C-alpha cells in the first residue's frame, strides 16, 4: 500500500498476519486492485470530510464572530475585529450578572467552601504528582483542577453568599443535579427490572416510552402538568393552599420542574443501557455469591457494580454531554424565567442570537464549549478510561 499525502496518512496495517504474504493472491482487475488499495481512505474520508466541513469550519467562523463586533446593515453585515472584548464583557463587564451571576462579597460559608475545594484539589494534585502520572497527564489534571476551582469559587460567590447566579450556574445545576438524579433512578429501575419479576416486558416497554417523544412536546406537556389552575394537579395545589403559587415565579421551583421534565425524558435512556449491562453480568458469579451466603447488597457491590461500571461511566458521560446542550425545556416551560434563573447557556446564546447580537451569542457559545470540553474530557480521561481499563 502506498503512502498518501492527505490529512489521514497511511501506514502498513498491523492486522494481517505475516503468513498472509506467503499465500498467492488471485489476480484481480486494475480498477478493483486500485480501489482496494484506496479503501482505507475510502472508509474514513466521508466521515472526516463531513465533520471537518460542518464542525471545524463553523467552529472557526464562530471564533471569528466571537472576536469581532458584528453590525447588521442593509443586505449584509459588518464584521470588525475587537479582540477578546466580548469575552471580557461576559466575564468581567456588563454581562457578568447574566453569565456568572451577581457578585457582592463572598460570605464566610462561601470562603469555607472555596477553601475546602482548594484543599481537596491540592491534595489530589500532590497525590498525582507523586504517583506515576506523565507530564502531559499532570498538565491535564492541572487544567481540570483549575476549572473546578474556578467554578466552585463562582458558586461560593453567588449561591453560598445569597446572590443570584447566572446561566453558567444554571447549566451546571442541570448537568450535575440532572445527571445524578437520572442515573440513580435509572440504575434503581434497571436493577429491579433485571430481577425475575412479573410483567417485566410490560414495564420495560413503558419505561422506554418517553424517549420516543419529541423534547419540545415534552416541554409543552410538562407546562400543562405544572399549571396550578388548569393542570391535572391543580386540586393537589389547592389542597396545599398553593392555588396562587406560580411555580414559574420561584427560581428554585422552576429549576426543579425543568430537571423533573428532563429526567422524565432521559431516565429511559439510562435505564435501557444499564439494563442491558446488568443482563450481561455473569450469572454464575452472582449465583456463587448467593451460595456463599452474601447479602444482596454485598453481591451488588462486589460483583454487579464492578462489571457494569464502565457502561455506567459512559452513559453518564453521554448524558452529561447532552445536558450541557439543554435548551428546549427551559425555552418552552419558562422562557428562561423568572428573570434569568432557568436560562441555560445554550438558551442564553439563542436569546443573544435573536437579539440579534451575533458576536455575544458566539462568545457565550464558546464559553459553554470551553467549560463543557474541559469537564467532559476530564471525566472521560479520569473516570471512563479508568473504569474500562479496570475491566480489561
Amino acid at each position, binding site marked *: 500500500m502506498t503512502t498518501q499525502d492527505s490529512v489521514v496518512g497511511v*501506514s502498513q496495517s498491523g*492486522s*494481517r498476519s505475516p503468513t498472509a504474504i506467503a499465500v498467492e493472491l488471485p489476480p484481480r482487475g486494475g480498477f478493483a486492485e486500485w480501489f482496494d488499495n484506496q479503501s482505507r481512505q475510502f472508509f474514513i474520508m466521508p*466521515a472526516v470530510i463531513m465533520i471537518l466541513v460542518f464542525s471545524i469550519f463553523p467552529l472557526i467562523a464562530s471564533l471569528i464572530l466571537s472576536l469581532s463586533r458584528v453590525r447588521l446593515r442593509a443586505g449584509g453585515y459588518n464584521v470588525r475585529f475587537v479582540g477578546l472584548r466580548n469575552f471580557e464583557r461576559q466575564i468581567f463587564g456588563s454581562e457578568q450578572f447574566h453569565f456568572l451571576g451577581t457578585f457582592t462579597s463572598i460570605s464566610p460559608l462561601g470562603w469555607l467552601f472555596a477553601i475546602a475545594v482548594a484543599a481537596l484539589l491540592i491534595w489530589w494534585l500532590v497525590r498525582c504528582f507523586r504517583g506515576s502520572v506523565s507530564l502531559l497527564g499532570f498538565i491535564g489534571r492541572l487544567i481540570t483542577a483549575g476549572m473546578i476551582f474556578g467554578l466552585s469559587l463562582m458558586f461560593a460567590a453567588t449561591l453560598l453568599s445569597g446572590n443570584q447566579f447566572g446561566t453558567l450556574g444554571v447549566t451546571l445545576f442541570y448537568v450535575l443535579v440532572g445527571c445524578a438524579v437520572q442515573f440513580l433512578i435509572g440504575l434503581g429501575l434497571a436493577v429491579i427490572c433485571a430481577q425475575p419479576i*412479573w410483567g417485566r416486558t*410490560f414495564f420495560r416497554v413503558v419505561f422506554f416510552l418517553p424517549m420516543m417523544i419529541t423534547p419540545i412536546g415534552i416541554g409543552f406537556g410538562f407546562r400543562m*402538568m405544572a399549571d396550578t389552575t388548569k393542570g391535572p394537579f391543580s386540586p393537589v395545589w389547592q389542597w396545599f393552599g398553593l392555588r396562587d403559587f406560580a411555580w414559574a415565579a420561584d427560581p428554585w421551583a422552576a429549576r426543579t420542574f425543568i430537571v423533573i421534565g428532563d429526567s422524565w425524558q432521559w431516565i429511559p435512556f439510562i435505564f435501557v*443501557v444499564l*439494563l442491558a449491562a446488568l443482563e450481561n453480568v455473569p450469572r454464575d458469579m452472582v449465583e456463587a455469591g448467593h451460595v456463599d451466603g452474601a447479602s444482596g447488597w454485598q453481591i451488588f457491590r462486589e460483583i454487579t457494580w464492578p462489571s457494569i461500571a464502565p457502561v455506567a461511566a459512559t452513559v453518564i458521560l453521554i448524558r452529561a454531554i447532552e445536558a450541557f446542550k439543554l435548551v428546549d425545556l427551559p425555552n418552552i416551560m419558562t422562557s428562561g424565567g423568572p428573570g434569568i434563573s432557568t436560562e441555560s447557556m445554550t438558551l442564553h446564546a439563542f436569546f443573544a442570537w435573536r437579539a440579534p447580537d451575533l458576536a455575544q*451569542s458566539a462568545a457565550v457559545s464558546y464559553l459553554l464549549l470551553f467549560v463543557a470540553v474541559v469537564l467532559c474530557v476530564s471525566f472521560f480521561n479520569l473516570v471512563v478510561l479508568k473504569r474500562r481499563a479496570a475491566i480489561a
Partner: protein
Amino acid sequence: MTFGDPTQRARGSSGIGRFFEAPQIGRMSPASRLIVYSLLLFWSAFVLFPLYWIVITSVKLPIDVNDGPAYLPFIDFAPNMHAWRDLLVLDLAETVKPYRNSVIIALFATIACMLIGSMAAYALARIEYKPKFGTILLFVVAMVGASVSVGIWGVDWRLAAASAGAIFVLLARALGRRFKRSVGNGDILFWMISQRILPPVVTVVPVYMMFQSVRLLDTHFALIVTYTVVNLPIVVWLMYDFFSGIPKDLEESAQLDGASRLTVFYEIVLPLARTGLAATTLLVLIFSWNEYVVALFLSTTNAQTMPILVAAMNGGEKGVLWWKMCVVIIIMIIPVVLMALVLQRFISKGILLGAVKG
C-alpha cells in the same frame, strides 16, 4: 417493544407462569416484593400520566381544557374529535407536508449517518491510521485563513476555499515527509466523539450562512446533511465498540481468499454487528426525528419538520392550542414506535449492549 432475553422467551414463560415458579436462589421475600412492585407501579404511573394527559387533551374541546382539569372522558367531559378533524381532514395538506418532510429527512439522514459512521468506525477499529500532526496543523491553518478571508475581507467563498485547498495540498506535498510526530486511531476516534460536545448554537449560525451562500436554505438536503453530521459522533462511538468486539479471524480468512475490504465489510462484518446496527439506528432515528433547534434555523416553509409544527401550535395571542398540539405529538410518536417494533427483532439481547460495553 420487548427487551426480554432469549433464554426467558425460550422457556415460554408468560408472566403468570413465572410468578408461581418454585422459589429459586435469590428470590425476594414477600415484603420486598411488595416494595418492588409498588415502586414499579409508581414509576409506570409517573411515566404514563403525562402521556395519558396528552391523549385525553387531544379529544377535549377548548372549553374543557380552559375550565380546569377534567380527568376522565365520558364522565368529566365529552370527548370530541374536533382537533383530530381539524388536522387530519380540514387542514390535511398542512399536516401532511411537514410530516412528509420529517419522514424524508429523518430516513435519509439516518441511512447516510449509519453508512458513513459505521464505515468510519470499522476503519478505526481495524485499520491503523497515522496522520502527521504537522499536516493536520497545516490544514487547520489553511481553513482559518480561508474563513478569515471570507468573513472579514469579504473574499468570495469559492475562491477562498479553492485557494486554501491548493495551498494546503502544495505545502503538504512539500513538507509532508519532514513531519515526524503523528497521531493514532485513538486520537481520531476521540476527535470525532468530541464533536458531539459542540453545542448546536456554536455551529448553527455559520452553517446557516454556509447554506445561505450556496442557496440551499430551507431544503431537505440541508437538514439531511446537518443531521447526518450531528449524529455521526454517536454512530462512530457506538459502532466502534461493536466492531472491536467482533473476532478478526473471519475477516482475515476472507481477505486471504481475495475478498476486497469493501466486500468483507458488507458481507461479513455488518451482518455480525446487526444488533448494534439496529440499536444505533433506532437511536439516530429518534434523534433526527425529534430535533428542533437546527430545524428552526435551517427551515422556514418548504422543509419545515414536525417539531416545528408542534411549536407552531403555540398560537401567540390566542394562547397555546393544546388540543391540536397534542394531536401532533401523538401522530409523531406512531412512526417511532413502529420503527422500534421493526428493529427490536434484531435487538435480541438488550438494546445498546455491546455498544457501550467497552
